[in-house]
C-alpha cells in the first residue's frame, strides 16, 4: 500500500464514521419506539423531514443556526410524537382488527400525511440552509506541514457528529439514571410486569414515541448544514433507520449505535472500492446478511458476551 492508497482508505473511514454517528442517532429513535411499543414506526423518516423543515424555517426567517434549531425542533417533534401516539396509535391499539399489525400500517399513513402537508405548505422544491461554515474543514497538512498524506475533517460533519454523541450520552443517562427512564426500560422488557409494578404504561408509551420523534428530529437538524431538504426525503431515511434497527437488534440502544456506525463505514467503503451507485445495494446486502446470520442483531452478540463471562 502506498501513501495515496492509505490516504483514500483513511479518508473513507473518516467519512464513514462521521456518517455512521448520524445514522446511529436516526436509528436510536426507531429502536426505542420498537422496544417499548413492539411496532416499527414507518413514519420515522417523515418525522425527521419535519424536523429539517423546522430548522429550515428558523434559519430562513429568524436566522437561527441549524445547530441551535435542535433545541426548538426536538421539543416540537416531542409534542408531535406524543400527539400522534395519544390520538392516533393508542386508539388503534385498542381495536381488534383483521390485520395483525395495523398500527404499523397506520404509521405508513401518518408518514404520507406528513409528507403531503409539508408539500402543501412549502411546495416540493428542494430547499437548503446555506450556512457559512458548510465547506470549512481542518486539514492535516495545516498542522503537520510535511505529512506524507492529506486528510481533511469537515467542520460541519464533525460538529454534527459531536452533537449526536452528546445526545446519545444524554439519552443513556436518562434511560439508566432517572425513574422515568427506568420505567420506560421496564415497559420495554415486560409490559404486563411493568403494569403490575405500578408503571403508567400508557404514559410511558406516549413519552417514548415523543422521545423517539425528538431524537430523529434532532438528527434532521444535524443533517441540514451539509444536506438539503424536500418533502419526500423521508422514505430514504426510514429505510436506513430500519436497517440499523434490525442490524442493532430490535430495541437495543447500544446495538443501534454500533449498527449505525457499521452501516456508515460499510456504505463508505462500498462507495470507494466498489462504486458509489452500489452503496444502496450494500445497504441491503448487510440487511439481508444480518437477518440470515445474526437474527438478534449486534445486541445478541453483546448479550452472549455477557453470559459467557
Amino acid at each position, binding site marked *: 500500500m502506498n501513501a495515496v492508497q492509505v490516504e*483514500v482508505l483513511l*479518508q473513507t473511514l473518516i467519512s464513514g464514521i462521521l456518517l455512521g454517528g448520524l445514522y446511529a442517532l436516526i436509528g436510536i429513535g426507531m429502536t426505542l419506539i420498537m422496544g417499548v411499543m413492539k411496532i416499527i414506526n414507518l413514519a420515522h423518516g417523515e418525522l425527521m423531514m419535519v424536523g429539517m423543515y423546522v430548522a429550515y424555517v428558523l434559519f430562513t426567517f429568524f436566522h437561527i443556526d441549524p445547530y441551535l434549531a435542535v433545541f426548538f425542533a426536538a421539543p416540537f417533534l416531542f409534542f408531535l410524537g406524543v400527539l400522534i401516539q395519544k390520538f392516533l396509535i393508542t386508539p388503534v391499539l385498542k381495536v381488534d382488527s383483521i390485520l395483525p399489525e395495523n398500527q404499523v400500517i397506520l404509521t405508513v399513513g401518518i408518514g404520507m400525511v406528513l409528507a403531503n402537508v409539508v408539500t402543501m405548505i412549502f411546495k416540493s422544491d428542494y430547499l437548503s440552509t446555506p450556512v457559512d461554515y458548510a*465547506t470549512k*474543514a481542518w486539514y492535516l497538512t495545516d498542522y503537520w506541514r510535511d505529512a506524507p498524506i492529506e486528510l481533511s475533517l469537515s467542520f460541519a460533519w464533525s460538529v454534527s457528529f459531536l452533537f449526536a454523541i452528546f445526545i446519545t450520552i444524554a439519552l443513556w443517562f436518562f434511560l439508566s439514571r432517572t425513574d422515568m427512564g427506568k420505567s420506560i426500560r421496564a415497559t420495554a422488557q415486560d409490559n404486563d410486569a411493568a403494569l403490575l409494578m405500578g408503571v403508567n404504561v400508557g404514559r410511558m408509551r406516549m413519552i417514548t414515541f415523543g422521545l423517539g420523534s425528538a431524537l430523529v428530529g434532532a438528527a434532521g437538524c444535524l443533517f441540514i448544514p451539509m444536506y438539503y431538504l424536500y418533502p419526500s426525503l423521508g422514505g430514504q431515511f426510514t429505510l436506513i433507520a430500519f436497517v440499523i434497527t434490525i442490524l442493532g437488534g430490535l430495541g437495543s440502544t447500544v446495538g443501534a449505535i454500533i449498527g449505525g456506525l457499521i452501516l456508515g463505514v460499510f456504505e463508505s467503503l462500498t462507495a*470507494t472500492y466498489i462504486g458509489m*451507485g452500489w452503496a444502496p445495494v450494500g445497504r441491503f446486502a448487510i440487511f439481508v446478511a444480518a437477518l440470515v446470520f445474526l437474527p438478534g442483531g449486534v445486541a445478541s452478540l453483546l448479550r452472549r458476551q455477557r453470559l459467557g463471562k
Partner: protein
Amino acid sequence: MKRLSIIFLLSFALSLFSTPLFAADTFDLSIPLPLTGSNAKFGEMEKNSYEIAAEEINAKGGVKGKKIILTFEDSQGKPDISRSVAEKLIDVKKQPIIIGEYSSSCSKAIAAVAEERKTPYLVVTGAADDITRQNYKYVFRLNPSSAYYSTGLISFFKQVVKPKTIAILYESSDFGTSGADDMEKQAGSFGAKVVLKEKYEKGAVDFKPILSQVKAKRPDVIYMVSYVMDASLLMKQIKELRIDAKLYAGGAAGFAIPEFIDNAKDAAEYVVTSTLWSPQVKYTGAKEFAEKYKTKYGDYPSYHGAEAYSALYVLKDALERAKNWTPNDIRDALAKTDIMTAFGPVKFEDKDGFQQQNFMDTLVLQVINGKHETIWPEKYASAKYVYPIPRWRDRR
C-alpha cells in the same frame, strides 16, 4: 306543443351564438410538466415561461385569430404518469399536438405514445440521445441532444485547457448516463484519458468516499453531470477535500442555474458549465424575455425557460403554416420549421443518426465573482474566462 317549439327555437338560437363564441376563438393546449416531485423547480420555471409566451402571442392577436389557452398537467416527473397524461390528451381531449415535459425519461415515454397515436410531439428539454434516434416520424426536438450539449465546452477544452486526464461523475439517470457516455467518447478528440468514470444514486448524502478516489487519480478536469442539489454538494465536498484539478466542469442542468451558486456559495467559484443559452446571449428576443421573466418572477431564467418560451413560438409558427389543425398537417408544418427564436435558430434536421433534431451552438458559462458569465465561444462572451484557476489552499 307550443312549449316544445319554443324550446326548440331557443336552443337553435343558442347554438347559433354559442359556436362562434366558445369553440372557435381559442386553442386549448395542455402541457405535461413536473409541477411536484423532485424536478418541480424546472417544471415551475417552464410553466412561467410558457405563460409569458402565451401572453405575448395572445396580445398580438393569437394564432390565426385564436387565443392560446394554456393548462398544465402535473406528471410529478414520473414516466408512467406522463405516459397516461399523454394518452389522455390524445385520446380524450383530441389535442392535435403535444409539447412539453422536462426530464428525458418522461419525454421518452410521451414520444412512444405520440408516435403510436400518430400525433406530433415537440420535445422541449429532454436531452437523452435516443429520443430522436428511433426513426420516429412524429417526434421533434427543440433542444440539442445531450451529445451536443458539450460542443462548446469541448472546444474550450481543446483550445484553452488541453487536459491530459479527465474524471467523470454522473447521476445514474437517463440524462446523467447519456451525458457521461458522450464525454467519455469525445475525450479522445481532445487527447484526454478518462481515468475514472463513476455514477452515483440521486439523493446521496456523502460523496467524499468517491471524491477521495478522484483525488488519488489527480485528474486535470473533473466533469460532472448532476442536477442542482447534487451539483452543489459535489462542489462543496470537493472544496472540503481540497481536490485541486485544473478545472471543474459541469454538464449543464444543475450547474447552469442560479440556485447552484446560492447553495454551493464560494465552492462554486470558477466552475465552468456547458449550457444552451444564457440571458446575455445575442439572439433577438433573448434579452427581452430574460428581463420580462426577471421582473415577473424575481430571477433570471436558465436555458430551460428559454426553451419553453421558444417552444410556444415554434408551435405558433407551425400552426400558422399548417393547412388544417390535424395531427398530420401540423406534423408536416413542423418538419418545415425554419425560424429564429429567443433560444436561437430552430430547424429540424436529420443528421448523424438523429431525426427531426434541432442542432445549434452551445455556450460555456463560468462562475466569476458569484455570477454566471458567458465565457465561450468568445464571440458571445460577456467576460474573459479565468484560467488557470487558483488552488483551494490559496483562495482568500
